């Protein structure tokens, strides 16, 4: 693909440094309209022997240059900034990252179910690992708590506790603990500390720790017993993680100095876009975004008022380790459309952890990975919905990204993985972010909020289907709904749906139609919209009715399971 570069236009280069791949993504503005142009991909060169992200970035940009014909690097492989009159270079640069050994975080709070819970929630917005969480009200002694923190070898401490105007004494004990910690640790191992507790104590803590540690004070994350204030602490946490990465990674410091905004953890940028989408969509339903990466999985949702962002340490590469720790083999084998033994899958997953960049080279391996993806999504969705805390769990739209979704045989295979893994309810549009742009858009929103608006509406995001997931407790095979789909050209498609069935109805991508149901039994089409008539838009897989029930029941016996899974795969 070669593009024509028009002078006097604006361009943005987004770099995303992932644990496996580094991507260079080019956006271009013509006639006030931003467009996604292309992306170049290279292996991330953070690890030994290179230990410098620059080479991976140069390779990714070089690949982008080859694809587009754009000139972005000069003869010394330096990024040309700002854009030149002849079209060379880019005007702005943003960076997101998810690579690197997870930051080790210890959370300290007063009460386990109050401030500590909130502190852990703050940490779950980034791909850090809580190596220890300590409640001062636990029974362990002062010295034992000190040992626990020391042994956890944290990079960062998040300290919370005490509501505003609450009692100070218990929190003063915490000050002593921090002071002792700074004394027992070697200077180069003293972690940075975020204090997000009762603000009356902030000065005292700062005073007692003096210059021995960098203390970052943010507003109380639990100012009242029933109120959380997560945003400032999350922002500070992201800033500190960026700072740690700049110190750890050769090459990032120089690049960050020419960035339009400081580099950001990809999860934070991803969450920002979902918050934005939540404000512009139907507030009665939330929007949901899921990014299944190599190291971790991001879940973000928003209904305009209530936002949540979680990073689970489960992924399709090294993130398999976290997931395998407590996986039940049946969670995976249930989704295998072939007769497979758990030992074979386990061997494959451990090999994949060693070589996370490897690509499924044949069908059976692809099925291993897709079964794992379903199981990871299933488990993380379950936890996310519990943490989401709202009664309404119907989302519109649902946006997914990750190599496991993009590297499939067909859009139907991708869609089925999403339906099996997330098991949405009601009516949703499933959108595939096939290039994994969402995180970068979140970063770009900081410099120009128009960019994400325009890109999200572009063809870079593929609507896979409008899916209808009715809920009924009728027996398998019982007809529960009659439906008619009225196309724009006046044609009709009539159909019946039996409990347990999965049905694909042709509806061209982007075409609108009226969908009318007639219930034959007790059935709820959508938990939020009390109606049987809907306007729907077609996706790559048309319109899909998923009446398989929630949760989807899979027979344990391979003789029954395999034909059923194959039938579902052949539906689209």
């Amino acid at each position, binding site marked *: 693909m070669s593009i024509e570069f028009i002078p006097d236009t604006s361009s943005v280069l987004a770099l995303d440094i992932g644990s496996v791949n580094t991507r260079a993504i080019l956006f271009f503005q013509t006639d006030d309209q931003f467009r996604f142009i292309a992306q170049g991909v290279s292996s991330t060169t953070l690890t030994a022997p290179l230990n410098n992200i620059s080479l991976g970035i140069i390779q990714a940009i*070089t690949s982008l240059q080859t694809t587009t014909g754009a000139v972005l690097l000069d003869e010394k492989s330096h990024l040309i900034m700002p854009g030149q009159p002849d079209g060379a270079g880019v005007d702005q640069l943003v960076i997101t990252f998810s690579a690197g050994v997870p930051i080790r975080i210890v959370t300290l709070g007063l009460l386990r179910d109050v401030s500590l819970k909130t502190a852990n929630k703050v940490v779950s917005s980034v791909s850090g690992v809580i190596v220890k969480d300590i409640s001062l009200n636990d029974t362990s002694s002062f010295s034992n708590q000190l040992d626990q923190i020391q042994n956890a070898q944290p990079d960062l401490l998040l300290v919370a506790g005490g509501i505003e105007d609450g009692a100070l004494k218990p929190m003063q004990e915490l000050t002593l603990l921090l002071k002792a910690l700074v004394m027992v640790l070697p200077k180069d191992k003293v972690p940075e500390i975020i204090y997000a507790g009762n603000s009356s104590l902030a000065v005292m803590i700062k005073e007692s720790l003096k210059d021995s540690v960098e203390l970052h004070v943010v507003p109380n994350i639990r100012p009242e017993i029933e109120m959380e204030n997560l945003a400032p602490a999350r922002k500070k946490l992201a800033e500190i993680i960026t700072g740690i990465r700049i110190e750890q990674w050769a090459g990032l410091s120089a690049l960050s100095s020419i960035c339009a905004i400081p580099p950001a953890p990809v999860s934070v940028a991803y969450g920002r876009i979902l918050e934005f989408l939540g404000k512009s969509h139907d507030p009665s339903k939330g929007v949901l975004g899921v990014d299944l990466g190599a190291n971790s999985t991001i879940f973000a949702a928003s209904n305009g008022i209530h936002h949540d962002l979680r990073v689970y340490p489960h992924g399709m590469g090294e993130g398999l380790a976290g997931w395998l720790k407590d996986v039940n083999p049946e969670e995976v084998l249930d989704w295998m459309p072939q007769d497979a033994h758990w030992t074979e899958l386990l061997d494959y997953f451990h090999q994949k952890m060693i070589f996370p960049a490897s690509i499924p080279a044949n069908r059976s391996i692809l099925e291993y990975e897709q079964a794992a993806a379903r199981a990871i999504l299933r488990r993380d969705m379950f936890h996310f919905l519990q943490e989401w805390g709202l009664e309404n769990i119907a989302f519109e739209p649902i946006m997914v990204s990750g190599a496991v979704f993009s590297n499939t045989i067909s859009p139907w295979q991708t869609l089925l993985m999403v339906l099996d893994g997330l098991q949405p309810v009601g009516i949703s549009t499933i959108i595939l972010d096939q290039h994994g742009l969402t995180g970068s858009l979140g970063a770009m929103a900081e410099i120009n909020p128009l960019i994400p608006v325009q890109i999200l509406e572009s063809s870079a995001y593929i609507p896979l289907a409008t899916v209808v997931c009715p809920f009924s407790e009728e027996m398998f095979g019982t007809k529960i709904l009659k439906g008619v789909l009225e196309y724009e050209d006046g044609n009709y498609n009539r159909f019946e749906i039996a409990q347990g069935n999965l049905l694909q109805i042709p509806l061209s991508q982007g075409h609108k139609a009226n969908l009318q149901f007639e219930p034959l039994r007790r059935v709820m089409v959508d938990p939020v919209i009390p109606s049987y008539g809907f306007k729907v838009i077609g996706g790559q897989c048309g319109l899909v009715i998923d009446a398989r029930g929630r949760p989807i029941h899979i027979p344990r016996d391979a003789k029954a399971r395999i034909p059923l899974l194959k039938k579902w795969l052949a539906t689209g």
Partner: protein
Amino acid sequence: MTLTTVTHTLPLTLLRRNRMMPYSGRIVVHESQHVKATDTLGTCLLPGKHLQIDLCDELGVKSVNKCMGLVERKPGDALTKGDVIAQTRSMVKRIVRAPSDGFVIAINNGMLLLEVENETFELKAGYTGIIHEILPELGVVIETSGALIQGVWGNNRIGQGILASSNQNPMLEFSRSSLDVSMRGCIWLGTYCVQEDALIAASELPLRGLILGSMSAELIPVAMHMPFPIILLEGFGMIALNQMAYKLLTTHDKREICINASSWDKTKGDRPEIIIPLPTEGKATDDVVELADDQTIHVTTMPYIGKIGVIKRIHPASDLLPSQIRAPFVEAQTEVGETMNLPLQNFEVMG
């Protein structure tokens, strides 16, 4: 231009490896000193446990100021069990003694913080070679010449011993019956292992080390508890040793070898590896090369896992793989003339 890292299976090379301690400590070797794999290079104290002593309470003194005046130690003092920390000056003395060996960390407001039970960490050489450089208080750089075979997984142990590889069928499973008493104290070259009993038999003999092509992932917890190093050259499953490594290792049968079965730390670059020290001086080789035709490669994932081939052609543009996924790939040929189409991510370049 596609740069790729190199996995080494070399008959002779010169290598330098950093050996580092987790905390500052004392290095006990000197530059140019010859060391064996099991030699200690340095020691450091690992963080111990902490004890908080309420001195006011122990001394029966209410005033913190008075209490502080009775303390006979200061931060940083080393204490032996029973040493006096503080005592009253009354007729009937109350004495606070050190409950065990340790260090005074802090004394504040009548509270004393002690660090006790520090364990000593010993940094082992891991390689037979010469100390090339001392990194003061932290570690050393060892230099050695010899054959080098890098693996993909290790059980975090280091060992040295005589390699026993004769009469091994490279396709035969390693089991209890593979072992006999003549192998006691040897490093055994096996193929693949799927039985826990085989590992237990190896520890009972005992072996000094075990080199395998692969192992069932279910055996990881058992392998981690084995007292000898276990290194996997291919990974997990039932995969025999690749021919290149097999030929090189069997050439050195009955020779003393070192196994550093560390876990693969991709950030630091520490990788499980086998070194066969040789008297001839080798040359250092590149760790990164540009992907090119005629390079020897080693397949790291199914379905060709463990096979060695030579790149015949690189296809930089994405094309359809048997999985129906599109990706750039190389066309490679095995020793027996079999053609493999491999995505760029599914092999390592050997060198």
